């Protein structure tokens, strides 16, 4: 599968200049040229992310001049680095992390997936007052968990412009799933555009970044394939709903250059191994708005953990990693180079790197898959004759779904659709990955080792609908934006069940701070423990939560601009 000779992307600069667009998408071959002056510290292009070892850390947040695509821009960096340095901790240690803000604006750092006191969670306005310019805040907490996590700013759009980094907590007593070597693979979405401008643009024209819409030519192609009446009925159906079946990502490769460990596809981040070694890859999606479908042609991926939690090993060809999700996989490469290929869910671009026994080797980079179209199943509607879904429905229906209850606010003007027949679909790999000929991970494949953290049966259920209005670019829970909603109240130490019903056509990564989300199947059986849970369009996803963390917590969609637009709630545990 791997070809040392097939050099696709690592082109010399002059060659890239012939293809302006290509250069933009793939970035500079020279890598993230972190032009460091002032307080920023120089970093050699393509080098491994710096690593800091605890229990005491000092992080300094600065602006940093960067150049990923040929255009000089300013990023927000930690200790002069984008991504921020890897923090290595030991389970059981009490860590002290001093964070100094050299920006002209407030900042914050959230330790994503950490179970810690509410005042250490790093969400301004809920956990603390934020870190004012020129000041230092000291985080101190005991690390009781282990695994792969990450950290990022929870202030404004700083996460979009570089403030994100990996965390590895080493397990006391050694890893359950041993490996000879490990690499952290942090995916992100860099943009040369000002994120404030991106958000304002989405408010002005929400489909601005979608260059994969259906055209007149697509209509005639459908007429040839399905006949005129079927093609026309399909257009009528979507038109009647005023929905767009190509809406897979709000911000696309038009604005994004996808990075792996802060490195553009052209610059080709490379991880070295010795043939035959078991290599643990710690995959983190630190992007702001992107889902990635990750595979390494020629290698099987043995998934051993998700969101820091060890799972029963399961071997797949490919996995989808939602924004803010984490997967640990083990691969056993032979004496060849392999491409790490992470295409965005809407197929508008990809992040790419190489695993190789020696530096300078490359392997073939696969072509982007075809764009998928949303189907009726994705909207939790009855599958009628006009369903394009490639999915096999026979194994989708996991028991009868309870009747859906829409909150009164969902009838309001900021909600553009409601799902009346959601389905559990834990075994659905998601739009664009169904029946693609590869073995793709689904949530039904996950089985967290050690069972749930709480045996009790959930005493109550909260049904929360993911709602929005794509055209007006308003996002909400139960038809209410954060600014109009009361906090959700959990009783201290209760075990409760949360049913998330996705009433939108987008896939949302939902993150509850401070407490684990323990996914259950349609029969209520424990599946997996996660900090960020993907909810597919038309899906009803259930998880249980033990409310043992006193205080105020953030609960939100981890798509940065969805959170900004209102898809956020405060959870109060008291």
């Amino acid at each position, binding site marked *: 599968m791997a070809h040392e000779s097939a050099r696709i992307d690592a082109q010399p600069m002059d060659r890239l200049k012939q293809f302006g667009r290509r250069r933009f998408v793939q970035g500079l071959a020279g890598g993230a040229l972190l032009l460091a002056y002032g307080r920023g510290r120089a970093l050699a292009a393509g080098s491994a992310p710096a690593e800091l070892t605890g229990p005491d850390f000092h992080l300094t947040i600065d602006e940093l001049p960067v150049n990923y695509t040929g255009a000089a821009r300013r990023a927000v960096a930690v200790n002069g680095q984008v991504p921020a340095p890897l923090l290595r901790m030991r389970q059981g240690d009490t860590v002290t992390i001093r964070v100094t803000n050299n920006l002209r*604006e*407030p900042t914050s750092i959230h330790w994503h997936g950490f*179970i*810690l*006191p509410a*005042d*250490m969670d790093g*969400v*301004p*306005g*809920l*956990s*603390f*007052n934020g870190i004012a310019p020129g000041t230092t805040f000291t985080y101190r*907490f005991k690390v*009781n968990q282990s695994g792969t996590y990450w950290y990022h700013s*929870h*202030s*404004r759009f700083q996460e979009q412009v570089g403030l994100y980094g990996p965390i590895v907590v080493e397990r006391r007593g050694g890893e359950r799933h041993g490996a000879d070597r490990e690499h952290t693979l942090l995916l992100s979405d860099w943009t040369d555009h000002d994120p404030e401008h991106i958000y*304002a643009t989405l*408010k*002005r*024209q929400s489909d*601005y970044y979608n*260059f*994969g819409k*259906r*055209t*007149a*030519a697509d209509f005639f192609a459908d007429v040839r394939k399905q006949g005129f009446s079927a093609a026309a009925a399909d257009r*009528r159906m979507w*038109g*009647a709903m*005023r929905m767009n079946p190509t809406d897979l990502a709000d911000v696309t490769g038009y604005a994004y250059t996808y990075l792996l460990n802060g490195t553009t596809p052209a610059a080709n981040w490379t991880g070295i191994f010795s043939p035959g070694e078991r290599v643990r890859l710690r995959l983190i999606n630190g992007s702001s708005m992107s889902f990635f479908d990750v595979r390494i042609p020629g290698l099987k991926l043995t998934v051993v953990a998700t969101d820091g939690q060890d799972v029963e090993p399961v071997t797949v060809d490919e996995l989808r990693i939602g924004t803010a999700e984490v997967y640990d996989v083990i691969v056993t490469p032979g004496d060849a180079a392999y491409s790490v290929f992470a295409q965005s869910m809407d197929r508008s671009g990809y992040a790419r790197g190489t695993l190789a026994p020696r530096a300078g080797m490359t392997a073939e980079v696969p072509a982007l898959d075809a764009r998928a179209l949303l189907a009726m199943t994705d909207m939790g509607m009855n599958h009628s004759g006009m369903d394009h879904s490639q999915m096999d429905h026979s194994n989708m229906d996991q028991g009868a779904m309870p009747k859906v209850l829409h909150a009164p606010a969902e009838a309001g*003007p*900021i*909600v*553009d659709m409601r799902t009346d027949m959601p389905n559990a679909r834990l075994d659905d790999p998601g739009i664009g990955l169904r029946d693609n000929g590869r073995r793709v991970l689904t949530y039904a494949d996950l089985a967290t*080792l*050690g*069972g*749930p*953290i709480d*045996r009790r049966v959930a005493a109550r259920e909260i049904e929360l609908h993911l709602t929005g*209005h794509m*055209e*007006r670019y*308003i996002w909400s829970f139960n038809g209410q*934006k*954060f*600014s109009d909603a009361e906090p959700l109240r959990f009783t201290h130490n209760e075990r409760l069940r949360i049913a998330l019903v996705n009433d939108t056509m987008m896939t949302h990564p939902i993150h509850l701070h401070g407490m684990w989300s323990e996914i259950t199947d349609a029969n209520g059986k424990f599946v997996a423990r996660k900090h960020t849970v993907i909810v597919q369009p038309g899906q009803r996803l259930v998880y249980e939560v033990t409310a*043992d*963390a*006193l*205080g*105020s917590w953030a609960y939100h969609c981890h798509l940065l601009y969805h*959170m*900004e637009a*209102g898809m*956020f709630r405060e959870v109060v545990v008291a």
Partner: protein
Amino acid sequence: MRRLALAAVSAIVAMRAFAQEPGQSEREHVPPDPPQTRVHAMPYHEMAEMMGMDDRRRFGKVMIDRLEWRDGDSSIYEWDAAAWYGGDFNKLWIETEGEHVGGSSDDARVDVLWDRIATAWWSTRLGLRQDFGEGPSRSWVALGIAGLAPGFVELEAMAYVGDGGRTALRLSTEYDLLLTQRLVLQPQLEVNAYGHDDPERLIGAGLSDIEIGLRLRYEIRREIAPYAGVSWSKRFGDSADLARAAGMDTDEFSLVAGFRLWF
């Protein structure tokens, strides 16, 4: 007896569930300590400021849908533009449309409206309209709806009440047909009707005029699109008679070219 047996069975089931050993995750999980400090209670705007997150933020947009030249006996320049500013629920909405013939402004209108979202696809509009140009200027109170009709058809329907009991109706609609991701064919229709004669502005009661356009634009960027197309307009009834009396054509077909811009 049966009840006793049932109770015994359920007790055993319950005990087994209760007696179930905690799993490894449950043994290892450590709830966090309570927070030592709490954030003070604050109103929304203060929290939004602190969080750097504000779903009530206001935005603005200026759209010049048509800025075009038309062929004809004399060169005619026409514009159709709108601007809005506001939040998700309420916006100040200003729109203007009109044409210049040979340097003098001829038939122009400005609406200043409060746009309030009412349903998922429609908003209500309430405000004032002022007509300028040939003849005396006219002022109106404006009331109507605007939104996206099924099939992605943009629609605005406005009713106007003016001084002296004048009334008017205006309907405008357009649709974007994507030929490619950047090449867009836009059919457009505007209809005007009036309740009373206004001969000084060449307006007769009833259906006054219809304009139909078909424009093909190329979006260099989303915000910048040159276009070319055709436009056909026709006056009806008393309005047509008044135009004829003034020595004007009652229908007109023209080639148009211009720019569509927004920011």
